[in-house]
C-alpha cells in the first residue's frame, strides 16, 4: 500500500492557489492573476503527472480501480482538456469551474486515502481496462462540455438581461462557447458510450449478466440518458432553456454518484 505522497499534497496546494487566484482575478479584474494561475496549473500538472505515474508504477495497472485513483485520473484529464482549450481558444473562463472541481477531486483522493487496489485478474482484462479508460476520458470531456454549457447559459442570460455579471468580460463569445461545449459533449458522449458498452461486455463475460445494478452503474445510466437529452437539445436548438440547465445539473450529479460509487466496487 502506498499512501498519498508529497507530490499529491503539493499538487493540491498548487491547484488550490491557482483556483484562489482565478477567483481573486474576478474581484480585482487583473488579467495577470489569471496568467499566474495558468502558470501554477502547469506546474501543478507536473506534480499531478508524477502522482499518476506513482500509482501506475506501484500497482502496475492504470489509475482507475478505486475512488482516489479514479478521482485523480479524472482531475488529470480535466486539466489536460482545460489546458488544450486554453491554448486553442484562449478561453480562460472555464477555469472558474474546472480548477475548483479539480481541487475537490484531488482532495477527495487525499482524504479517502484508500489503499491502491491490489492487482486482480480483472485488471489484466483488456476490455476492463478499456472500459475504465474510455469512461474516465469520456466523463472528463463531458464535464468540460458542461462547464462551457454553463458559461453559455450565464452569458446568454446576461446578454438578454443587458446586465454584466462578474464573469462577463472573461467569458468568450457565445459562438465559441456553443462550439466548444457541443464538440466536448459529442466527443465525450461517444467515448463515454463506448466505455459503458465495454463495461457491459466485461460484466457479461465475467458475471454472465449485462450489469450489476449499484450506485456506479445507476449513476452512469442516468448520466448517459441526461447527456443524450442535452445533446438532443443542442441539435434541436433548444439548449438555452431552463430544462437543459436542469438536465445538465442532473447529469453532473449522476456523474458524481457514479464516481463515488467506484469505491463501492
Amino acid at each position: 500500500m502506498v499512501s498519498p505522497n508529497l507530490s499529491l499534497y503539493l499538487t493540491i496546494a498548487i491547484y488550490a492557489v491557482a483556483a484562489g487566484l482565478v477567483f481573486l482575478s474576478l474581484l480585482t479584474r487583473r488579467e495577470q492573476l489569471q496568467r499566474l494561475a495558468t502558470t501554477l496549473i502547469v506546474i501543478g500538472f507536473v506534480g499531478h503527472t508524477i502522482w499518476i505515474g506513482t500509482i501506475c508504477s506501484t500497482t502496475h495497472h492504470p489509475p482507475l480501480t478505486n475512488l482516489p485513483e479514479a478521482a485523480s485520473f479524472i482531475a488529470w484529464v480535466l486539466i489536460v482538456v482545460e489546458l488544450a482549450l486554453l491554448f486553442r481558444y484562449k478561453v480562460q473562463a472555464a477555469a472558474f469551474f474546472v480548477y475548483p472541481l479539480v481541487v475537490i477531486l484531488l482532495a477527495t483522493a487525499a482524504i479517502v486515502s484508500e489503499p491502491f487496489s491490489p492487482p486482480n485478474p480483472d485488471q489484466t482484462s483488456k476490455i476492463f481496462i478499456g472500459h475504465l479508460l474510455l469512461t474516465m476520458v469520456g466523463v472528463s470531456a463531458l464535464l468540460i462540455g458542461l462547464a462551457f454549457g454553463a458559461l453559455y447559459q450565464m452569458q446568454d442570460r446576461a446578454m438578454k438581461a443587458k446586465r454584466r455579471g462578474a464573469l462577463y468580460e472573461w467569458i468568450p463569445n457565445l459562438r465559441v462557447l456553443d462550439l466548444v461545449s457541443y464538440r466536448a459533449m459529442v466527443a465525450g458522449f461517444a467515448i463515454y458510450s463506448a466505455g459503458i458498452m465495454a463495461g457491459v461486455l466485461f460484466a457479461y463475460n465475467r458475471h454472465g449478466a449485462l450489469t450489476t445494478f449499484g450506485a456506479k452503474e445507476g449513476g452512469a445510466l442516468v448520466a448517459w440518458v441526461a447527456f443524450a437529452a442535452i445533446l438532443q437539445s443542442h441539435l434541436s436548438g433548444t439548449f438555452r432553456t431552463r430544462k437543459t440547465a436542469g438536465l445538465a445539473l442532473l447529469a453532473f450529479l449522476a456523474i458524481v454518484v457514479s464516481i463515488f460509487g467506484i469505491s463501492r466496487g
Partner: protein
Amino acid sequence: MTLTLIGVNHRTAPVELRERLSIAKGSEADVLRPLASNGGIRGTAVISTCNRVEIIVSSEADNIIEPVVELLAERADRDPEQIEKHLYVLRHRDAIRHMFRVASGLDSMIIGEPQIGGQVRDSYQIAKNLDTLDSTLYALYEQTLHVAKRVRTETGIGEHAVSIPFAAVELAKKIFGELKGLRALLVGAGEMGELTAEHLKGNGLESIVVANRAYDKAVELAGRFGGEAAQFDSVATQLEKADIVIVSTSAPNYTVTAEQVRQAMDSRRRGDIFLIDLSVPRNIDPAISEIEGAYLYNIDDLSEVAEANKAKRLEKAAQADRIIEKEVDAFLKRLATQDAVPTIVELQRRLDEIRQAELEKCLRKMGPVTAEQRQAIEALTTGIINKVAHYPIIRLRESASAPNEGETIRETIRKIFGLR
C-alpha cells in the same frame, strides 16, 4: 539637461485658438527650425493634433519659455500675453509624465483613444527627419512609445467601446466572435444607423442589405457600403438571412415585430440574431427579447454600455497612472546617469593626461629602459590613477539619480580636478 513642455489642449484653450496654433502636416519645420537654432535649446519637437499643440524642448538653460511663447503668439497672430493664459508650462518631471500620459491616451478627450499613440509616433519621426532631436529627446520619445504600449497592454484601457456604434460592434463580437461572413440588414436611413453599419463593415462584416421607404436612398446607401438595396416591404423576408439587424427609421410604430422575428428564426438555418433599435420611438418590438437566440438592444441600452465602458476606462486610467509614475522615476534615473557620463569621461581623460605627461618626464630622467620595464611602469601608473578615480566615479554614479546632489557632486569634482 532640462526638459520643458509648453502647449495648449482642449481643456485650456478654445477651438478658435487651437486652430490658429495648429501646425499643418508638412510645415513643422517652420516651428522646429527657428527653435533649434536658438542657442539655449539643444533639442525640440512638436505634437499637433486637433486637441493639442505642444512643443517640447530640451535645454541647458531655463530661460527658453519666452522664445517658444513668442513663436506661438506669432503663429496665432496674437500678443504673447493673450495666449499665455491658455498655455501650460511643464518642467522636467511634469513634462515627462505629461508625454507618457498623452501617448497613452490618458490626456485625451476620450480617455484611452488609440489615435494619439500614432500621432506621437509621427511627431517623433518628423523631428528625427528634421534633425531637431538631441539625445535626451531621443531617449524621451523612445521611452514614451514604450510606456504607451505597456499601458495599453497591461491595462487594456482602449479595449471597451465608448460610443454607440462601437458599443454595437462590441456586442456583436460578444455574440458572434468574428464578424467575418455575417450579413446585416439596415432598415431606414437614420444617421446613427448609417454610422453603426459603417463601423460593423469596418470590423469585417461580409455584406449589408439596405431597406428604406425611399428606394433611391436605399440604393445610394447600399452603394456606399458595397451592399444591396431592398424594398421596404421585404424586411420580413430579409430577416431570415440577416445575422444583425439595425433599425433607424422615424416610423411611429414597430417596423420589426416579434412575429416576424419568430417566423424568421424558425425558417432560417442561421444561428443567433442581433437586433439594434436606434429609433425613437422604438421600431423593434421589445417582446423580441423573449425569443431564444434573439438579442435586442435599443439606443438606451447601447448608451448604457458606452457609459459603463467610460467608467471602466476611468478605473483603468488610475491603474495606468500608477504605471506611468514608476516609469517617470525610472526615466529620470536614466537621464541623471546620462548627465554624469560626460564628467566621468572627462575625469578619466584628465587623469590619463597627467599620467602620460608625468610618465614622459620620468622616462626622460631615467634614460633607456627595456620594453618590459616600460610596460611595468605603465601598468603601475595606470593602476594608481584608476585607484584615484575609483571613488569619485562611484560617487558620480551613485548621486546621479538625486538631481540636486548629483549636480553638486559633479560641480565639486569638476572644480577639484580642474575639468572644463
